[in-house]
């Protein structure tokens, strides 16, 4: 229980600082809106084609906007040697990591929940009745992004080219999770039932989340401390 209490202490710290400054979420939201705008030039927003690629568009927006949040996650601790202080504190690396993961997860979900209706409005997509399932997909997919992103944020925090390295490293790794989320989202947004052959993507998402959470929690101490 103490483990979880300390994890949530870290989460609360991150969320509190974000609520007070609101800089990361604002930046992420603005970026998401810009991407939605840019995509409107790439595809004709009014065509039926959008229905086929809706899931893909949505998750690309989430992935790109999410990188901003994930980057900030450990970068914000560099000022005043806060990261060193955190590492030196009695909180273990795994607790620090999980705490930040949950905070990033919450922030990313907020951004996504705002983006979803905006996306529906911009691209004339009627949101499905199976909104609950869509939300489940968002929960699963976002956790995958968060888990990998937070770990790699810890890895790249001290590098010169932090902002470049993080996206370069995480996007290839995230492909299975993104594929699952995209496929399921496309099907759900189109209003079709999730068929048997799409059900496998739920399993892919859950497996991805489980495997990489365990791997990350196991290795994060090495990344942070050595």
């Amino acid at each position, binding site marked *: 229980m103490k483990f979880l209490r300390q994890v949530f202490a870290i989460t609360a710290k991150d969320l509190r600082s974000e609520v007070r400054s609101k800089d990361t979420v604002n930046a992420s939201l603005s970026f998401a809106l810009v991407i939605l705008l840019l995509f409107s030039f790439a595809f004709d927003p009014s065509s039926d084609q959008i229905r086929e690629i809706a899931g893909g568009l949505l998750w690309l927006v989430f992935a790109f906007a999410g990188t901003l949040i994930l980057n900030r996650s450990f970068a914000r601790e560099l000022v005043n040697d806060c990261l060193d202080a955190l590492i030196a504190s009695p909180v273990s690396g795994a607790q620090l990591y999980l705490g930040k993961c949950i905070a990033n997860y919450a922030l990313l979900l907020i951004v996504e929940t705002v983006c979803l209706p905006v996306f529906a409005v911009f691209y004339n997509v009627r949101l499905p009745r199976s909104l609950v399932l869509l939300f489940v997909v968002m929960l699963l997919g976002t956790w995958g992004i968060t888990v*990998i992103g937070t*770990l790699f944020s810890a*890895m*790249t925090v*001290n*590098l*010169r*080219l932090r902002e470049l*390295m993080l996206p*370069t*490293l995480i*996007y*290839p*790794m995230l*492909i*299975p999770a993104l*594929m*699952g989320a995209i*496929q399921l989202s496309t099907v759900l947004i189109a209003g079709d039932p999730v068929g048997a*052959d*799409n059900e*496998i*993507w739920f399993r*892919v998402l859950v*497996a*991805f989340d489980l*495997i*990489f959470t365990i*791997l990350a929690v196991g*290795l994060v101490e*090495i*990344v942070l401390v*050595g």
Partner: protein
Amino acid sequence: MRLKIILILSVLSGALLAWNLHSMFMDVPDELNQGAVFRIIYFHVPAAMTSFTGFYLGMFAGIGYLVKKDLRFDSIAAAINEVSLAFATVTLITGSIWGRMIWGIWWAWDPRITSYFVCWLIYTGYLMLRRAIDEPTTRARLSAVLSIFGAVDILIVWKSIEWWRTQHPGPVLEIRGGGGMAPGMEAPLWWNALALVMLATVLVLIRSRQQSMQREIDSLRRYAHAF
């Protein structure tokens, strides 16, 4: 000793490759549908096999560093991953050329190619990460963790893309065809695989020594400037 191994392996692999080239052209007949170009497979597949083996060995070398904290493991890991990336590049390029001839397109998004490309991207990221870190132990540590993630992810990526692409049938592509090749044709492939593995080993040995040398230079320079 090391130099002797390098020399012997390079001569052996060179000889094997040369002999293979000969048997590829003289003994093996042209394939029925593809004509002469199918011989690219004799480099394409062995290069792919070598690169995959390399990436997994690289992961183990990374784990070796994390467990033993010996920087020699890191030199080996870096060298293996780099050499495997070179062979992966060969695989992608030869595959693309073959595809152009057989399917008429330079690229296709079928499961195998796509997941291989993802693998290539992950390890390019690995090299970029190494380039970005100056401190040797941090570099060894972080790149070892990255190579573990990368190697695990390759499997997941492979399976996922296979499921994805079989749901969206693309152009008809079956590289290997039904049951594989006729026995007479298959031999040069395995010999070439052996030759490429030997060549890869030579390159890894040379490259890992260079990594160690670079580290020695860095530390000597630091020592010199400390005066």
